[in-house]
């Protein structure tokens, strides 16, 4: 009950934050139509075996959802600057519940961002069985785990002045090297780098929509490794930030 009320107001704040709504919902949507709209009849985008609308639908869903969960980090940094986390430490709300509320609201926004992109994709002719849509959504949600941890890490490490550029820059690099804007060629150094990034595997969820079964073992391993590493880093940054001396 307590947590529900608390999380409800967290969510309300989020929806009232225009910049956040623009970056995680409107921005990806507009870009999707701009990029995929021009290539809507491309059935096989640069030999990926995936149509352009499907590829960019998942690519921009990855981008929007990354922004959505990383937004939790920006909010943590802002609340630290405000002294709000000190205020909350004087309430019965546990640190775990505080972070939990941030993660849950981040994920809820990610779900909305994803749903918006899926509808947009369908409007440009993306279609598949319901089970495939669900599987793709599930993979995106799992693939976001490293970014949830990254948000908490950055939120506790960086000041509120620099958290915007820090998160924006991080998202831009992960998006570019992960293949959000164009497919990464199957050969060469770029492909090696991309394969080691969690954002690449978010985008690769598109293959499910084209009939593939899911991530390869490498994909699972990369997502798991990033999740663990960033969770450790997040824990360190959190402890360092809330140390009482």
């Amino acid at each position, binding site marked *: 009950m307590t947590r529900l009320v*608390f999380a409800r107001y967290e969510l309300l704040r989020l929806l*009232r934050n225009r910049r956040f709504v623009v970056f995680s919902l409107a921005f990806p949507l507009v870009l999707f139509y701009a990029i995929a709209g021009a290539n809507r009849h491309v059935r096989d985008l640069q030999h990926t075996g995936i149509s352009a609308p499907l590829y960019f639908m998942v690519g921009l869903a990855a981008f929007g959802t990354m922004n959505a969960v990383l937004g939790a980090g920006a909010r943590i940094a802002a609340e630290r600057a405000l*002294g709000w986390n000190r*205020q909350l430490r*004087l*309430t019965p709300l546990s640190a775990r519940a505080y972070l939990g509320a941030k993660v849950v609201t981040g994920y809820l926004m990610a779900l909305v961002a994803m749903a918006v992109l899926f509808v947009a994709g369908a409007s440009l002719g993306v279609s598949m069985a319901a089970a495939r849509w669900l599987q793709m959504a599930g993979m995106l949600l799992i693939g976001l785990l490293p970014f949830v941890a990254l948000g908490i890490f950055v939120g506790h490490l960086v000041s509120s002045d620099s958290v915007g550029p820090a998160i924006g820059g991080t998202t831009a690099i992960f998006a570019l090297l992960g293949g959000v804007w164009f497919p990464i060629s199957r050969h060469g150094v770029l492909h090696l780098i991309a394969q080691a990034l969690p954002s690449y595997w978010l985008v690769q969820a598109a293959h499910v929509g084209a009939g593939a079964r899911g991530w390869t073992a490498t994909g699972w391993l990369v997502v798991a490794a990033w999740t663990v590493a960033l969770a450790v880093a997040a824990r360190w940054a959190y402890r360092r930030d809330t140390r009482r001396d």
Partner: protein
Amino acid sequence: MKTGIHLHGLCKTFHAGGQRIEAVRDLDLSIGRGETVALLGPNGAGKSTTIDMLLGLLAPDLGSVSIFGRSPAQAIAEGAVGAMLQTGGLLRDLTVRELVTMLASLYPRPLPVDDVLALTGTTHLATQRTQKLSGGETQRVRFALALVANPQLLVLDEPTVAMDVEARHDFWTTMRSFAAGGKTILFATHYLEEAEAYADRAVLMARGRVVADGPTTEIKAMVGTRTIEATLPHAPVDSLERLQGVARAERRGARIVLACADSDAAIRALLAAFPDARDIEIRGAGLEEAFLQLTQDRDSRQEAAA
């Protein structure tokens, strides 16, 4: 010892830029349940550091804190503590009512939100977004956030600093009615008048120590003194100290400084005994000065004893 607040042997030293700052030095303080206590002292006396340790926001180097027989973390987890810290803003993108409701949801026995808004004079702000409030309005809402917990212990760190005279008056009226419900209240201030008007007891801190602790009337007599300064090159300090109304005398070059319990009597006695006193100034001793005097006395007594 189940009741009340006990701070025992608290020490806290900060290291900043190669300097050691002993913010709190071996502080002992007990507050009974239902008492309203003012923590009085100049800036840098260690009031905020003491409050942070009381609330568990800061771990003491040495010493212990007990709030109604519990650790600060336990007392806070049970919702027994409400606090208004010296600094801190309000979460944006919510209305005042939403923010107070959000905080209320965290406590096991909160006060009704409408009551708290009425109590703190923020009812007319209820539908405003928090980022649109003025400084004084923000303070009132922060007070509402501390009260909505319906805490057994209310801690306020210099709550009226950003308020104008009227807001200050309203604030203390509210606090008084809250205290009347048997709550324990500790507030830090550097206004002697606030301590005198609203606390049963005042604890004076200076340089990280408690230098005096007693009913506010006593404390006022102790620090509510006046100081006479004059140019008087040849008068011996001990004969000045024997003048009626003078508590302490000190020489600073050609100037003498008399701390007076009764400055009217003292000035008459001074002029009668030393008619050549010139450039006379009489002023109310600032708290800061009174505190420093008290600490110096204590330090020098301790040094003498050692």
